[in-house]
């Protein structure tokens, strides 16, 4: 029985109204590199499929210029189908669908059912919970597993809809349906990924793109090659996101957000953005890695596991944060921005602060036995207690105490100190600055390189217990009194001098 024509199923008078409504959605045509089989473009007068006769969609489908809108009393059956086809989809790896939920929809899935020439079936589905009402969304679903006995080389028919038995209202707009051998280009808009996504070739963002993963059918998103483009990329998944090659090394991404609790694997050595980077889950390094944001924040909401690799955080913009890091061969903070460690890290490698500020957001944020090498940056205790291993100074650097801050190093007398160490926000009454537990914790030359900014840049002195304090013991208030007295003396001297000149 041939499918009915549009004249049979479309109510008169609804066409123009919906065309105008749809134009406001503003999403362009799909860009889909690689071989594709267009199942239906839903273009007016040129659709491949048609309303299933006697289904609840009959009379409830409105033909738009490049889409159909299902409404009225239509229910969540597969109400749109094409039959008597002869499609060879044996090379297809993805089913791609462009769909929009409309107000009033109660169907909980969008399903496409394929039937081969022997009437074996294969079904691919997307939960509507992953779609946003009123937003036209591109969906791509892996079709690698068609199901036992199904022959993708002889697809004879397909149907589309809610995939159910008609128990709920279906309100959707369908714009495109195709099978392809590659993933959609990341050219902007929201792409719903309903399964593992593997971008094997180099990708360039053509627009701000959101990859939403339904999480129901496999959740890995893998970039097997480079990723560039001056646009933002957000990946929402509960699975693993892997960057096998450098990200943003050619053209920095505007921003990168790995959301949804995904774990991130960074094997490419570098992720560079002009704006923010946010990682909602754990980050695992497969190589020495630099995270670089030119003006945005780097936010690591999960721990970084280094696999004995070097981690470099380069921030120059907004305040950044990292929960913790482990198994790093080294950790380097560069760039003028501030990075706060909010949890406790456990790596054995050296921590380098070459520029900007590494702030402690909790007690013992840095590994207790780890070496700290200050090469021009600032360690900000923010009032927390921290025990460390050795301290090396290779350029003028700063340690910023706050009320209650305690900093204890191991005996660092054998370490090279080639710059001054400025101590700020330090008070002998509330802070502890210590090197081992003996006076041999630092050499006299090292002590001379210390400048206690709040004590007139006094150099350090070390006690028998290794406590380092300003060598000029007077309290800050005493310094103020001395300065006032000196000013008075200077004024009296000038008055006397003026009188002698005038006499």
């Amino acid at each position: 029985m041939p499918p009915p024509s549009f004249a049979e199923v479309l109510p008169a008078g609804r066409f123009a109204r919906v065309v105008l409504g749809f134009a406001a959605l503003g999403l362009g045509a799909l860009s889909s590199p690689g071989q594709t089989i267009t199942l239906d473009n839903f273009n007016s007068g040129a659709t491949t499929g048609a309303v299933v006769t006697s289904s609840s969609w009959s009379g409830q489908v409105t033909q738009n210029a490049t889409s159909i809108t299902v409404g009225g009393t239509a229910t969540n059956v597969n109400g749109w189908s094409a039959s008597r086809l002869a499609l060879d989809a044996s090379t297809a790896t993805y089913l791609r669908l462009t769909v929009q939920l409309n107000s009033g929809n109660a169907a909980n899935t969008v399903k496409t059912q394929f039937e081969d020439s022997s009437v074996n079936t294969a079904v691919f589905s997307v939960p509507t919970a992953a779609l946003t009402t009123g937003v036209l969304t591109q969906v791509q679903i892996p079709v690698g597993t068609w199901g036992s006995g199904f022959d993708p080389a002889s697809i004879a028919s397909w149907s589309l809809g809610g995939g159910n038995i008609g128990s709920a209202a279906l309100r959707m707009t369908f714009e495109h349906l195709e099978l392809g051998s590659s993933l959609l280009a990341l050219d902007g808009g929201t792409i719903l990924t309903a399964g593992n996504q593997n971008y094997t070739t180099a990708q360039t963002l053509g627009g701000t793109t959101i990859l939403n993963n339904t999480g129901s059918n496999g959740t890995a998103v893998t970039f097997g090659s480079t990723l560039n483009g001056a646009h933002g990329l957000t990946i929402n998944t509960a699975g693993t996101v892997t960057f096998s090659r450098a990200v943003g090394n050619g053209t920095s991404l505007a921003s990168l957000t790995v959301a949804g609790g995904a774990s991130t694997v960074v094997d490419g050595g570098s992720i560079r953005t002009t704006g923010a980077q946010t990682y909602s889950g754990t980050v695992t390094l497969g190589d020495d890695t630099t995270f670089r944001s030119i003006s945005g924040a780097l936010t690591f909401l999960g721990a970084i596991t280094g696999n004995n690799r070097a981690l470099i955080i380069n921030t120059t913009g907004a305040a950044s944060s990292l929960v913790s890091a482990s198994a790093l061969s080294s950790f380097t903070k560069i760039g003028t921005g501030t990075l706060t460690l909010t949890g406790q890290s456990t790596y054995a490698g050296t921590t380098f602060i070459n520029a900007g500020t590494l702030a402690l957001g909790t007690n013992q944020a840095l590994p207790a036995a780890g070496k700290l090498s200050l090469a021009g940056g600032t360690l900000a205790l923010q009032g927390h207690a921290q025990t460390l291993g050795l301290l090396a100074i290779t350029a003028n650097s700063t340690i910023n105490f706050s009320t209650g801050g305690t900093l204890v190093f191991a005996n660092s007398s054998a370490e090279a100190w080639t710059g001054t160490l400025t101590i700020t926000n330090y008070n002998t009454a509330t802070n502890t600055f210590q090197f081992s537990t003996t006076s041999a914790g630092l050499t006299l030359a090292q002590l001379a390189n210390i400048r206690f900014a709040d004590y007139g840049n006094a150099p350090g002195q070390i006690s028998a217990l290794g406590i380092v304090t300003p060598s000029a013991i007077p309290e800050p208030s005493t310094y103020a009194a001395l300065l006032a007295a000196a000013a008075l003396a200077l004024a009296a001297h000038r008055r006397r001098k003026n009188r002698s000149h005038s006499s």
Partner: protein
Amino acid sequence: MHLSPSPRRSLLRPLCLCASVVHLFGFSTHAQEGRSRPIGYLDQAIPTGQTRSFSVPFDPESSSLPQTVGRLTAVGTNYLENSAAAWTPGAFSTAAAPYFARITSGAHAGRMFRIVAPANTATRLHVADDGVGLATLGLETSATTGATFEIIPGDTLATFFGTTASGDTLVVHGAGDPLAADLVQVWGGAAWLNFYYNTVWQRWARDTDQITDPSRNNFLLRSDRGLMLTRRGPTPLEITVGGRVLATSQRAAHGRTANALTFLATMQAGDITLGALALQTGTRTTGWVGSADSATADLLIVWSGSSWFSFYYNTATGHWQRVGDPVNRDGYVIGAGTPVFVQRNQAGSSAADQTIVFPAPGT
């Protein structure tokens, strides 16, 4: 090889009956099985113009071919093996005469697998596992202690409902127009596959077929699944099917992508209530989602004769109820042979996730 008509299709004839009736009338003893299973038959009547859900709650007699009862000696990703067998290669692998292998002992007693291509060898049956991971199930394998199995005939549209071919009987109403013929609907996972017997073409056809399309005579009717029948003939249709009542629980594989629907035969030879079916219990399903909110609960959906009734297990009240109706429906009766849609809200991937254990009839 079994011959048409179906060994379970003991009688299908136009007759007016208003309810389904199950009859148990004896025992079947298979020589190699060494124990008996009760046999019975089920009548179901479909008045003109009405639609019924339908499944066969019996196994047919095991195949009359040699050595169709035995023990598993090896299991692979897509095959079952009995090293003691000497089957005729290909005997169980033709589209016109499909077969199933039912496991009859061991931890997976009650599972059933379709025998599929490639063709069986003298000792090996290639089977479809419906995604449960055949090799990972842990089916017992040994010439002496391995899980027992039997090979049972399956049905196609032609073997179950007949044809107009010489020597055969078409037991449904055929027509040249699909809208005038009895309609047989098989759930395809997301949509119905609609079949009818085209009396002009003298073969089973899909409702979308044209004469140049292939015959659908050999379309497989899975005995572990249900179907829908719409009677359009001028008189009511009575379907009477017979076979052996299951001695073990039916372990049914079902789709476990989120919100997937599977139309399952419960293999209950007698009526059973929702409370007795008890799919919410751990012995019947793994991770059945009950909820106070039907929107987040797993559903069991039953054809009432004119509409679908959706039930869910309300964990707040501790009973089954219909969506939108707080009344306790633990006592709702699912008739013998009535298939049920199962819709699991969440995805599941393990074999246990994908298995529903329906109670053994009579337990």
